[in-house]
């Protein structure tokens, strides 16, 4: 798992991941890139991350992938990420395509629901929590 301040250098990251696995005999590589769209007059999105829980969440996914003979990778931005740049990339390597196609779907959807990352719109230099696009995590409301 890789965290960076600001936008991701997607070509460097994917190039490096491909180089690392060049001799691993994986038949399928499926990348996912999340890019900031220009909408609602935002200048950027901004992110807070709670790394200890994110690392545990990611470690569990690495174990699930390993059980399928696959590898999951991810990188995410901290702080401000301008429109038309990327804040999130992930990828799956697997021996055959079916595992990778299913795993990237499950991994990215669970990422959206349970990775401890908070998103803010940046408008006129102000950070505004994206409450209406956020999802409660598993177990939410325990203390209410």
């Amino acid at each position: 798992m890789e965290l960076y301040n600001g936008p991701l250098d997607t070509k460097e990251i994917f190039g490096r991941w491909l180089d690392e696995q060049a001799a691993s005999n994986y038949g399928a590589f499926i990348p996912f890139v999340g890019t900031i769209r220009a909408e609602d007059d935002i200048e950027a999105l901004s992110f807070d991350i709670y790394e200890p829980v994110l690392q545990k969440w990611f470690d569990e996914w690495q174990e699930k992938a390993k059980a399928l003979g696959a590898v999951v990778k991810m990188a995410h931005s901290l702080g401000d990420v301008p429109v038309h740049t990327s804040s999130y990339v992930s990828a799956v390597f697997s021996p055959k395509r079916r595992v990778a196609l299913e795993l990237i779907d499950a991994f990215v959807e669970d990422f959206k629901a349970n990775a401890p990352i908070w998103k803010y719109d940046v408008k006129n230099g102000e950070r505004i929590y994206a409450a209406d696009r956020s999802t409660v995590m598993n177990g939410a409301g325990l203390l209410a």
Partner: protein
Amino acid sequence: MIKVEFLGPIGKAPLEMEANTLADVAAKLRTDSDLSSWLDKCAVALNDTMVNDLSTVLKDGDKISILPPVCGG
């Protein structure tokens, strides 16, 4: 003494309190008006592991994290 930290957009300074279980923490946080709009939406981690049981026993030095709704990507 345990520590309670509030992550992301909650924007509240950490609290220290005496508590034997998560239920004790819940009882104290419910009286805090800063948190009235957050607690029903927040998940909880104990020492960076997600927890789901109010009867979870706490010990001196434990860290509780309060995690509001998320949106990575």
